[in-house]
Protein backbone atom coordinates (compact mmCIF):
# COMPACT_ATOMS: atom_id res chain seq x y z
CA UNK A 1 0.00 0.00 0.00
CA UNK A 2 2.84 2.36 0.79
CA UNK A 3 3.90 4.01 -2.45
CA UNK A 4 7.10 5.49 -1.14
CA UNK A 5 9.84 2.86 -1.44
CA UNK A 6 12.82 4.91 -0.23
CA UNK A 7 15.28 3.07 1.98
CA UNK A 8 14.90 3.70 5.68
CA UNK A 9 16.74 6.75 6.93
CA UNK A 10 19.89 5.51 8.65
CA UNK A 11 20.95 6.56 12.09
CA UNK A 12 22.82 9.87 12.05
CA UNK A 13 26.57 9.54 12.06
CA UNK A 14 28.21 9.82 15.45
CA UNK A 15 30.45 12.84 15.94
CA UNK A 16 34.01 12.12 14.89
CA UNK A 17 35.86 11.21 18.02
CA UNK A 18 38.92 9.43 16.71
CA UNK A 19 42.19 10.39 18.31
CA UNK A 20 44.03 13.14 16.47
CA UNK A 21 46.20 11.76 13.70
CA UNK A 22 49.91 12.54 13.72
CA UNK A 23 50.47 15.68 11.72
CA UNK A 24 52.69 14.01 9.14
CA UNK A 25 49.97 11.53 8.29
CA UNK A 26 48.77 12.26 4.77
CA UNK A 27 45.38 10.59 4.97
CA UNK A 28 46.38 7.06 3.99
CA UNK A 29 44.61 5.61 7.04
CA UNK A 30 41.25 6.68 5.55
CA UNK A 31 41.93 5.23 2.10
CA UNK A 32 38.98 2.87 2.24
CA UNK A 33 36.60 5.83 2.13
CA UNK A 34 38.31 7.66 -0.70
CA UNK A 35 37.76 7.76 -4.46
CA UNK A 36 39.90 5.40 -6.55
CA UNK A 37 42.25 8.14 -7.76
CA UNK A 38 43.04 9.07 -4.17
CA UNK A 39 43.55 5.46 -3.22
CA UNK A 40 46.11 5.11 -6.00
CA UNK A 41 48.22 8.03 -4.80
CA UNK A 42 47.96 6.82 -1.23
CA UNK A 43 49.28 3.43 -2.21
CA UNK A 44 52.40 4.89 -3.83
CA UNK A 45 55.61 4.26 -1.89
CA UNK A 46 57.45 7.10 -0.19
CA UNK A 47 60.51 8.28 -2.14
CA UNK A 48 61.50 11.36 -0.20
CA UNK A 49 61.20 11.77 3.54
CA UNK A 50 62.08 14.37 6.13
CA UNK A 51 62.34 12.77 9.55
CA UNK A 52 62.39 14.99 12.62
CA UNK A 53 64.17 17.55 10.52
CA UNK A 54 65.22 20.77 12.21
CA UNK A 55 67.32 23.44 10.53
CA UNK A 56 69.17 26.36 12.09
CA UNK A 57 70.62 29.47 10.46
CA UNK A 58 73.17 30.18 13.16
CA UNK A 59 71.15 30.60 16.35
CA UNK A 60 67.86 31.04 14.53
CA UNK A 61 65.82 27.91 14.08
CA UNK A 62 64.03 27.90 10.71
CA UNK A 63 62.52 24.38 10.70
CA UNK A 64 61.14 22.55 13.72
CA UNK A 65 61.03 18.79 13.82
CA UNK A 66 59.52 18.29 10.37
CA UNK A 67 58.13 14.86 9.49
CA UNK A 68 57.01 14.78 5.89
CA UNK A 69 56.91 11.94 3.37
CA UNK A 70 56.50 12.45 -0.38
CA UNK A 71 55.01 9.60 -2.37
CA UNK A 72 56.34 8.39 -5.73
CA UNK A 73 54.78 9.92 -8.86
CA UNK A 74 52.77 12.42 -6.90
CA UNK A 75 52.89 16.18 -6.55
CA UNK A 76 53.37 17.60 -3.05
CA UNK A 77 52.63 21.32 -2.67
CA UNK A 78 54.27 23.21 0.18
CA UNK A 79 52.24 26.26 1.21
CA UNK A 80 52.43 28.83 3.95
CA UNK A 81 53.12 32.52 4.54
CA UNK A 82 56.48 34.07 3.68
CA UNK A 83 59.16 32.96 6.08
CA UNK A 84 57.30 29.82 7.14
CA UNK A 85 60.16 27.55 6.07
CA UNK A 86 58.72 25.95 2.96
CA UNK A 87 61.54 27.08 0.65
CA UNK A 88 64.08 26.21 3.33
CA UNK A 89 62.67 22.70 3.43
CA UNK A 90 62.74 22.47 -0.37
CA UNK A 91 66.38 23.53 -0.39
CA UNK A 92 67.12 20.99 2.34
CA UNK A 93 66.00 18.25 -0.02
CA UNK A 94 68.92 18.81 -2.39
CA UNK A 95 71.29 20.30 0.20
CA UNK A 96 71.30 23.73 -1.35
CA UNK A 97 71.39 25.11 2.17
CA UNK A 98 74.96 23.79 2.30
CA UNK A 99 75.83 26.77 0.12
CA UNK A 100 74.88 29.10 2.96
CA UNK A 101 77.37 29.30 5.80
CA UNK A 102 76.38 28.65 9.40
CA UNK A 103 73.55 26.24 8.59
CA UNK A 104 73.03 23.30 10.91
CA UNK A 105 70.70 20.34 10.38
CA UNK A 106 69.23 17.87 12.86
CA UNK A 107 67.20 14.83 11.86
CA UNK A 108 67.30 13.08 8.51
CA UNK A 109 66.28 13.52 4.90
CA UNK A 110 65.91 10.23 3.05
CA UNK A 111 65.88 9.74 -0.71
CA UNK A 112 64.80 6.14 -0.98
CA UNK A 113 66.80 4.56 1.81
CA UNK A 114 69.72 6.93 1.57
CA UNK A 115 70.26 9.63 4.18
CA UNK A 116 71.09 12.74 2.19
CA UNK A 117 72.97 14.26 5.12
CA UNK A 118 75.14 11.23 5.70
CA UNK A 119 78.77 12.45 5.69
CA UNK A 120 79.58 9.98 2.92
CA UNK A 121 77.03 11.35 0.46
CA UNK A 122 78.32 12.75 -2.82
CA UNK A 123 76.40 16.02 -2.95
CA UNK A 124 77.00 16.56 -6.67
CA UNK A 125 75.70 13.08 -7.46
CA UNK A 126 72.75 13.74 -5.16
CA UNK A 127 71.78 16.89 -7.02
CA UNK A 128 71.62 14.88 -10.25
CA UNK A 129 68.86 12.87 -8.64
CA UNK A 130 66.98 16.05 -7.70
CA UNK A 131 66.09 18.47 -10.50
CA UNK A 132 65.44 22.01 -9.36
CA UNK A 133 63.37 24.75 -11.00
CA UNK A 134 63.50 28.23 -9.54
CA UNK A 135 61.12 31.15 -9.26
CA UNK A 136 62.86 33.11 -11.98
CA UNK A 137 63.82 31.21 -15.07
CA UNK A 138 67.60 31.09 -15.33
CA UNK A 139 68.69 29.76 -18.71
CA UNK A 140 72.40 29.90 -19.37
CA UNK A 141 73.57 32.34 -22.04
CA UNK A 142 73.90 29.45 -24.43
CA UNK A 143 71.83 27.86 -27.18
CA UNK A 144 68.61 26.04 -26.39
CA UNK A 145 70.40 22.78 -27.21
CA UNK A 146 73.36 23.51 -24.95
CA UNK A 147 71.12 24.58 -22.09
CA UNK A 148 69.44 21.20 -22.09
CA UNK A 149 72.62 19.23 -22.76
CA UNK A 150 74.55 21.07 -20.05
CA UNK A 151 73.96 18.62 -17.22
CA UNK A 152 75.00 15.68 -19.35
CA UNK A 153 78.08 17.46 -20.69
CA UNK A 154 79.37 18.18 -17.17
CA UNK A 155 78.82 14.50 -16.43
CA UNK A 156 81.24 13.85 -19.28
CA UNK A 157 78.79 12.70 -21.93
CA UNK A 158 80.26 13.44 -25.36
CA UNK A 159 78.34 11.08 -27.63
CA UNK A 160 76.37 13.30 -29.99
CA UNK A 161 73.59 10.74 -30.48
CA UNK A 162 73.13 10.39 -26.74
CA UNK A 163 73.02 14.16 -26.33
CA UNK A 164 70.61 14.60 -29.26
CA UNK A 165 68.29 11.97 -27.81
CA UNK A 166 68.41 13.54 -24.35
CA UNK A 167 67.76 17.05 -25.67
CA UNK A 168 64.79 15.91 -27.76
CA UNK A 169 63.37 13.74 -24.98
CA UNK A 170 63.72 16.51 -22.43
CA UNK A 171 62.24 19.20 -24.64
CA UNK A 172 59.33 16.91 -25.46
CA UNK A 173 58.97 16.22 -21.76
CA UNK A 174 58.83 19.92 -20.97
CA UNK A 175 56.34 20.57 -23.77
CA UNK A 176 58.76 22.84 -25.63
CA UNK A 177 59.93 20.63 -28.49
CA UNK A 178 57.36 21.69 -31.08
CA UNK A 179 58.08 25.33 -30.42
CA UNK A 180 61.89 25.18 -30.64
CA UNK A 181 62.82 22.11 -32.71
CA UNK A 182 63.75 24.30 -35.70
CA UNK A 183 65.89 26.71 -33.71
CA UNK A 184 67.73 24.54 -31.24
CA UNK A 185 70.94 26.44 -31.78
CA UNK A 186 69.50 29.86 -31.11
CA UNK A 187 70.05 31.46 -27.71
CA UNK A 188 67.86 30.28 -24.87
CA UNK A 189 67.64 33.89 -23.75
CA UNK A 190 65.58 34.69 -26.86
CA UNK A 191 62.63 32.64 -25.60
CA UNK A 192 59.62 34.10 -23.78
CA UNK A 193 59.48 33.92 -19.98
CA UNK A 194 57.20 30.88 -20.01
CA UNK A 195 59.35 29.14 -22.63
CA UNK A 196 62.49 29.92 -20.62
CA UNK A 197 60.92 28.30 -17.57
CA UNK A 198 60.05 25.21 -19.61
CA UNK A 199 63.61 25.23 -20.95
CA UNK A 200 64.82 25.12 -17.35
CA UNK A 201 62.47 22.21 -16.71
CA UNK A 202 63.91 20.46 -19.80
CA UNK A 203 67.40 21.08 -18.43
CA UNK A 204 66.35 19.44 -15.17
CA UNK A 205 64.78 16.47 -16.99
CA UNK A 206 67.87 15.81 -19.13
CA UNK A 207 69.74 14.15 -16.27
CA UNK A 208 66.75 11.92 -15.46
CA UNK A 209 66.18 13.01 -11.87
CA UNK A 210 64.01 11.04 -9.48
CA UNK A 211 62.49 14.11 -7.89
CA UNK A 212 61.84 17.57 -9.29
CA UNK A 213 61.85 20.45 -6.81
CA UNK A 214 60.05 23.59 -7.93
CA UNK A 215 60.31 26.85 -6.03
CA UNK A 216 57.41 29.08 -7.11
CA UNK A 217 57.99 28.17 -10.75
CA UNK A 218 55.11 30.27 -12.10
CA UNK A 219 55.31 33.38 -9.96
CA UNK A 220 56.88 35.42 -12.76
CA UNK A 221 54.68 34.06 -15.54
CA UNK A 222 51.45 35.27 -17.13
CA UNK A 223 48.27 33.15 -16.75
CA UNK A 224 48.72 31.37 -20.08
CA UNK A 225 52.33 30.42 -19.41
CA UNK A 226 51.32 29.43 -15.87
CA UNK A 227 48.63 27.19 -17.25
CA UNK A 228 51.14 25.46 -19.55
CA UNK A 229 53.52 24.82 -16.68
CA UNK A 230 50.67 23.45 -14.56
CA UNK A 231 49.62 21.11 -17.37
CA UNK A 232 53.23 20.08 -17.68
CA UNK A 233 53.45 19.29 -13.95
CA UNK A 234 50.42 17.06 -14.39
CA UNK A 235 52.16 15.25 -17.26
CA UNK A 236 55.52 15.03 -15.51
CA UNK A 237 54.21 13.25 -12.45
CA UNK A 238 53.73 10.11 -14.53
CA UNK A 239 57.51 9.78 -14.56
CA UNK A 240 58.72 11.95 -11.70
CA UNK A 241 57.93 12.89 -8.14
CA UNK A 242 57.42 16.61 -7.73
CA UNK A 243 57.62 18.93 -4.74
CA UNK A 244 56.42 22.46 -5.45
CA UNK A 245 56.51 25.56 -3.28
CA UNK A 246 53.77 27.99 -4.20
CA UNK A 247 52.12 31.08 -2.75
CA UNK A 248 49.17 30.57 -5.06
CA UNK A 249 46.47 28.57 -3.26
CA UNK A 250 44.58 27.91 -6.47
CA UNK A 251 47.74 26.57 -8.05
CA UNK A 252 48.39 24.26 -5.13
CA UNK A 253 44.80 23.06 -5.38
CA UNK A 254 45.04 22.55 -9.14
CA UNK A 255 48.34 20.74 -9.48
CA UNK A 256 49.03 18.80 -6.32
CA UNK A 257 47.93 15.46 -4.91
CA UNK A 258 49.04 16.37 -1.41
CA UNK A 259 49.45 19.72 0.29
CA UNK A 260 51.52 20.54 3.35
CA UNK A 261 50.88 23.75 5.27
CA UNK A 262 53.75 25.35 7.18
CA UNK A 263 53.73 28.13 9.70
CA UNK A 264 56.74 29.61 11.46
CA UNK A 265 58.95 26.67 10.57
CA UNK A 266 56.45 24.05 11.69
CA UNK A 267 54.45 21.61 9.63
CA UNK A 268 50.90 22.32 10.73
CA UNK A 269 49.01 19.90 8.51
CA UNK A 270 49.52 17.66 5.50
CA UNK A 271 46.91 15.72 3.60
CA UNK A 272 45.22 14.98 0.34
CA UNK A 273 44.84 18.29 -1.44
CA UNK A 274 41.08 18.07 -1.94
CA UNK A 275 40.60 17.29 1.73
CA UNK A 276 42.90 20.03 2.92
CA UNK A 277 41.22 22.66 0.75
CA UNK A 278 37.64 21.66 1.53
CA UNK A 279 37.83 20.50 5.12
CA UNK A 280 41.20 21.06 6.80
CA UNK A 281 41.76 19.49 10.18
CA UNK A 282 43.51 22.49 11.72
CA UNK A 283 41.94 25.88 12.33
CA UNK A 284 45.19 27.57 11.36
CA UNK A 285 45.16 25.88 7.95
CA UNK A 286 41.55 26.96 7.47
CA UNK A 287 42.40 30.58 8.29
CA UNK A 288 45.42 30.61 5.99
CA UNK A 289 43.81 29.07 2.93
CA UNK A 290 40.74 31.26 3.45
CA UNK A 291 42.96 34.34 3.41
CA UNK A 292 42.26 35.27 7.02
CA UNK A 293 45.90 35.53 7.94
CA UNK A 294 49.30 35.52 6.28
Amino acid at each position, binding site marked *: *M*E*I*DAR*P*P*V*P*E*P*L*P*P*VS*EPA*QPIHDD*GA*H*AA*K*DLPLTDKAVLQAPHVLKAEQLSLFYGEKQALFDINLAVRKNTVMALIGPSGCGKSTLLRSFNRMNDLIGNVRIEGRVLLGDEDLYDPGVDVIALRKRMGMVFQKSNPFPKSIYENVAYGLRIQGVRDRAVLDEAVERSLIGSGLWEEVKDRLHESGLGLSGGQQQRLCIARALAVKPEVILMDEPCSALDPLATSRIEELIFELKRDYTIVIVTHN*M*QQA*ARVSDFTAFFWMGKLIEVGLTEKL*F*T*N*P*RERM*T*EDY*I*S*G*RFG
Partner: protein
Amino acid sequence: MGRHFDNELRDLKFSLLAMAGQVEEMIDLTRKALKDRSDAQAEQVVNADQQVDEMELRLDQACIDLLALRAPFASDLRLLASTLKIVPELERIGDHCCNICRRAKLLNPQPSILAGDWLERLGDETHSMVRRAVDAFVNGDADQARSVIQDDDKVDELYGTIYRELLRVMLADPLCIERASHLIIVIKNWERIADVATNIAEEVLFILEGVNVKHAYLQGPSTND
Protein backbone atom coordinates in the same frame (compact mmCIF):
# COMPACT_ATOMS: atom_id res chain seq x y z
CA MET B 1 40.24 37.83 0.71
CA GLY B 2 39.86 39.09 4.30
CA ARG B 3 37.17 41.19 5.82
CA HIS B 4 35.55 42.33 2.59
CA PHE B 5 34.85 38.73 1.65
CA ASP B 6 33.49 38.11 5.13
CA ASN B 7 31.05 40.97 4.56
CA GLU B 8 30.02 39.48 1.23
CA LEU B 9 29.43 36.09 2.86
CA ARG B 10 27.41 37.77 5.62
CA ASP B 11 25.26 39.52 2.99
CA LEU B 12 24.75 36.19 1.22
CA LYS B 13 23.63 34.56 4.47
CA PHE B 14 21.20 37.43 5.13
CA SER B 15 19.74 37.00 1.64
CA LEU B 16 19.38 33.26 2.20
CA LEU B 17 17.66 33.89 5.51
CA ALA B 18 15.29 36.38 3.87
CA MET B 19 14.37 33.67 1.36
CA ALA B 20 13.93 31.11 4.15
CA GLY B 21 11.72 33.59 6.02
CA GLN B 22 9.55 34.09 2.97
CA VAL B 23 9.23 30.32 2.52
CA GLU B 24 8.34 29.81 6.18
CA GLU B 25 5.66 32.47 5.78
CA MET B 26 4.28 30.48 2.83
CA ILE B 27 4.23 27.30 4.95
CA ASP B 28 2.39 29.11 7.71
CA LEU B 29 -0.19 30.49 5.30
CA THR B 30 -0.58 27.06 3.72
CA ARG B 31 -1.39 25.52 7.10
CA LYS B 32 -3.93 28.27 7.75
CA ALA B 33 -5.44 27.92 4.28
CA LEU B 34 -6.12 24.26 5.04
CA LYS B 35 -7.20 24.71 8.62
CA ASP B 36 -9.44 27.77 8.03
CA ARG B 37 -10.55 26.60 4.57
CA SER B 38 -9.49 29.98 3.32
CA ASP B 39 -9.23 30.51 -0.43
CA ALA B 40 -7.78 33.96 0.17
CA GLN B 41 -4.84 32.60 2.10
CA ALA B 42 -4.31 29.87 -0.46
CA GLU B 43 -4.25 32.54 -3.15
CA GLN B 44 -1.74 34.55 -1.12
CA VAL B 45 0.62 31.55 -1.10
CA VAL B 46 0.38 31.05 -4.84
CA ASN B 47 1.04 34.75 -5.41
CA ALA B 48 4.07 34.73 -3.09
CA ASP B 49 5.82 32.07 -5.14
CA GLN B 50 7.11 34.51 -7.73
CA GLN B 51 9.02 36.41 -5.06
CA VAL B 52 10.70 33.20 -3.94
CA ASP B 53 11.61 32.38 -7.53
CA GLU B 54 13.19 35.81 -7.91
CA MET B 55 15.15 35.33 -4.71
CA GLU B 56 16.42 32.01 -6.04
CA LEU B 57 17.78 33.65 -9.17
CA ARG B 58 19.48 36.43 -7.21
CA LEU B 59 21.07 34.02 -4.75
CA ASP B 60 22.22 31.69 -7.50
CA GLN B 61 23.95 34.58 -9.20
CA ALA B 62 25.49 35.80 -5.93
CA CYS B 63 26.95 32.34 -5.26
CA ILE B 64 28.35 32.01 -8.77
CA ASP B 65 29.87 35.49 -8.54
CA LEU B 66 31.55 34.74 -5.22
CA LEU B 67 32.85 31.38 -6.43
CA ALA B 68 34.28 32.99 -9.56
CA LEU B 69 35.68 36.12 -7.97
CA ARG B 70 36.81 34.87 -4.58
CA ALA B 71 37.82 31.27 -5.35
CA PRO B 72 37.06 30.28 -1.75
CA PHE B 73 38.42 27.31 0.18
CA ALA B 74 37.50 25.30 3.26
CA SER B 75 34.44 26.48 5.24
CA ASP B 76 33.85 29.40 2.84
CA LEU B 77 33.75 26.96 -0.06
CA ARG B 78 31.44 24.62 1.82
CA LEU B 79 29.11 27.52 2.66
CA LEU B 80 28.87 28.60 -0.98
CA ALA B 81 28.54 25.08 -2.38
CA SER B 82 25.80 24.25 0.13
CA THR B 83 24.00 27.57 -0.37
CA LEU B 84 23.82 26.69 -4.06
CA LYS B 85 22.00 23.51 -3.01
CA ILE B 86 19.87 24.99 -0.21
CA VAL B 87 18.45 27.75 -2.41
CA PRO B 88 16.66 25.42 -4.88
CA GLU B 89 15.47 23.33 -1.92
CA LEU B 90 13.80 26.42 -0.45
CA GLU B 91 12.32 27.27 -3.82
CA ARG B 92 11.00 23.71 -4.02
CA ILE B 93 9.24 24.17 -0.67
CA GLY B 94 7.49 27.19 -2.17
CA ASP B 95 6.34 25.04 -5.08
CA HIS B 96 5.04 22.34 -2.72
CA CYS B 97 3.10 24.98 -0.76
CA CYS B 98 1.54 26.17 -4.01
CA ASN B 99 0.59 22.59 -4.90
CA ILE B 100 -1.08 22.15 -1.52
CA CYS B 101 -2.92 25.46 -1.80
CA ARG B 102 -4.24 24.68 -5.29
CA ARG B 103 -5.70 21.46 -3.87
CA ALA B 104 -6.97 23.36 -0.81
CA LYS B 105 -9.01 25.62 -3.06
CA LEU B 106 -10.64 22.55 -4.60
CA LEU B 107 -11.29 21.01 -1.19
CA ASN B 108 -12.49 24.08 0.66
CA PRO B 109 -16.11 24.13 -0.65
CA GLN B 110 -16.61 20.43 0.12
CA PRO B 111 -17.24 18.66 3.43
CA SER B 112 -14.22 17.19 5.15
CA ILE B 113 -13.61 13.46 4.86
CA LEU B 114 -10.70 13.23 7.26
CA ALA B 115 -11.57 13.00 10.94
CA GLY B 116 -9.27 14.29 13.68
CA ASP B 117 -6.32 16.65 13.39
CA TRP B 118 -4.06 14.43 11.29
CA LEU B 119 -3.60 17.00 8.56
CA GLU B 120 -2.77 19.75 11.05
CA ARG B 121 -0.26 17.55 12.80
CA LEU B 122 1.43 16.74 9.51
CA GLY B 123 1.66 20.46 8.69
CA ASP B 124 2.93 21.29 12.18
CA GLU B 125 5.63 18.62 12.17
CA THR B 126 6.78 19.58 8.71
CA HIS B 127 6.84 23.29 9.50
CA SER B 128 8.84 22.56 12.65
CA MET B 129 11.41 20.62 10.63
CA VAL B 130 11.86 23.48 8.15
CA ARG B 131 12.10 26.05 10.94
CA ARG B 132 14.68 24.01 12.85
CA ALA B 133 16.74 23.33 9.72
CA VAL B 134 16.90 27.07 9.08
CA ASP B 135 17.68 27.74 12.77
CA ALA B 136 20.49 25.16 12.62
CA PHE B 137 21.93 27.12 9.67
CA VAL B 138 21.60 30.45 11.46
CA ASN B 139 23.00 29.25 14.77
CA GLY B 140 25.59 26.82 13.38
CA ASP B 141 23.93 24.11 15.46
CA ALA B 142 24.91 20.62 14.24
CA ASP B 143 22.83 18.86 16.91
CA GLN B 144 19.71 20.65 15.79
CA ALA B 145 20.46 19.71 12.17
CA ARG B 146 20.78 16.07 13.23
CA SER B 147 17.47 16.23 15.09
CA VAL B 148 15.75 17.42 11.89
CA ILE B 149 17.17 14.46 9.98
CA GLN B 150 15.90 12.10 12.66
CA ASP B 151 12.42 13.63 12.63
CA ASP B 152 11.88 12.83 8.97
CA ASP B 153 10.85 9.35 10.13
CA LYS B 154 8.05 10.85 12.22
CA VAL B 155 6.63 12.68 9.23
CA ASP B 156 6.96 9.59 7.05
CA GLU B 157 5.03 7.64 9.64
CA LEU B 158 2.34 10.28 9.88
CA TYR B 159 2.08 10.41 6.11
CA GLY B 160 1.69 6.62 5.98
CA THR B 161 -1.05 6.68 8.60
CA ILE B 162 -3.06 9.37 6.82
CA TYR B 163 -2.53 7.68 3.47
CA ARG B 164 -3.94 4.41 4.80
CA GLU B 165 -6.87 6.27 6.36
CA LEU B 166 -7.65 7.93 3.03
CA LEU B 167 -7.56 4.55 1.27
CA ARG B 168 -9.98 3.23 3.86
CA VAL B 169 -12.30 6.20 3.28
CA MET B 170 -12.20 5.69 -0.49
CA LEU B 171 -12.96 1.99 -0.18
CA ALA B 172 -15.84 2.71 2.18
CA ASP B 173 -17.41 5.45 0.06
CA PRO B 174 -16.48 5.86 -3.63
CA LEU B 175 -18.09 9.32 -3.61
CA CYS B 176 -15.11 10.46 -1.51
CA ILE B 177 -12.52 9.38 -4.07
CA GLU B 178 -12.09 12.81 -5.65
CA ARG B 179 -11.56 14.58 -2.31
CA ALA B 180 -9.34 11.79 -1.03
CA SER B 181 -7.23 12.03 -4.19
CA HIS B 182 -6.73 15.75 -3.58
CA LEU B 183 -5.83 15.02 0.02
CA ILE B 184 -3.30 12.36 -0.99
CA ILE B 185 -1.60 15.00 -3.10
CA VAL B 186 -1.72 17.42 -0.16
CA ILE B 187 -0.10 14.98 2.26
CA LYS B 188 2.47 13.89 -0.33
CA ASN B 189 3.51 17.52 -0.72
CA TRP B 190 3.84 17.93 3.07
CA GLU B 191 5.93 14.78 3.17
CA ARG B 192 8.13 16.11 0.38
CA ILE B 193 8.62 19.39 2.27
CA ALA B 194 9.87 17.35 5.24
CA ASP B 195 12.31 15.58 2.89
CA VAL B 196 13.51 18.97 1.69
CA ALA B 197 14.00 20.12 5.31
CA THR B 198 16.10 16.99 5.80
CA ASN B 199 18.18 17.88 2.74
CA ILE B 200 18.75 21.37 4.13
CA ALA B 201 19.80 19.92 7.50
CA GLU B 202 22.27 17.65 5.69
CA GLU B 203 23.75 20.66 3.94
CA VAL B 204 24.03 22.45 7.28
CA LEU B 205 26.06 19.52 8.62
CA PHE B 206 28.28 19.69 5.55
CA ILE B 207 28.85 23.40 6.11
CA LEU B 208 29.61 22.96 9.80
CA GLU B 209 31.60 19.73 9.82
CA GLY B 210 32.61 19.02 6.24
CA VAL B 211 30.85 15.68 6.54
CA ASN B 212 28.56 14.48 3.79
CA VAL B 213 25.80 12.55 5.55
CA LYS B 214 23.66 12.06 2.46
CA HIS B 215 22.89 8.45 1.70
CA ALA B 216 24.83 7.52 4.82
CA TYR B 217 23.95 3.85 4.34
CA LEU B 218 26.35 3.87 1.37
CA GLN B 219 29.25 5.43 3.20
CA GLY B 220 30.19 3.50 6.30
CA PRO B 221 30.80 5.14 9.64
CA SER B 222 32.92 8.17 8.71
CA THR B 223 34.38 9.98 5.71
CA ASN B 224 35.82 12.93 7.51
CA ASP B 225 39.49 11.97 7.72
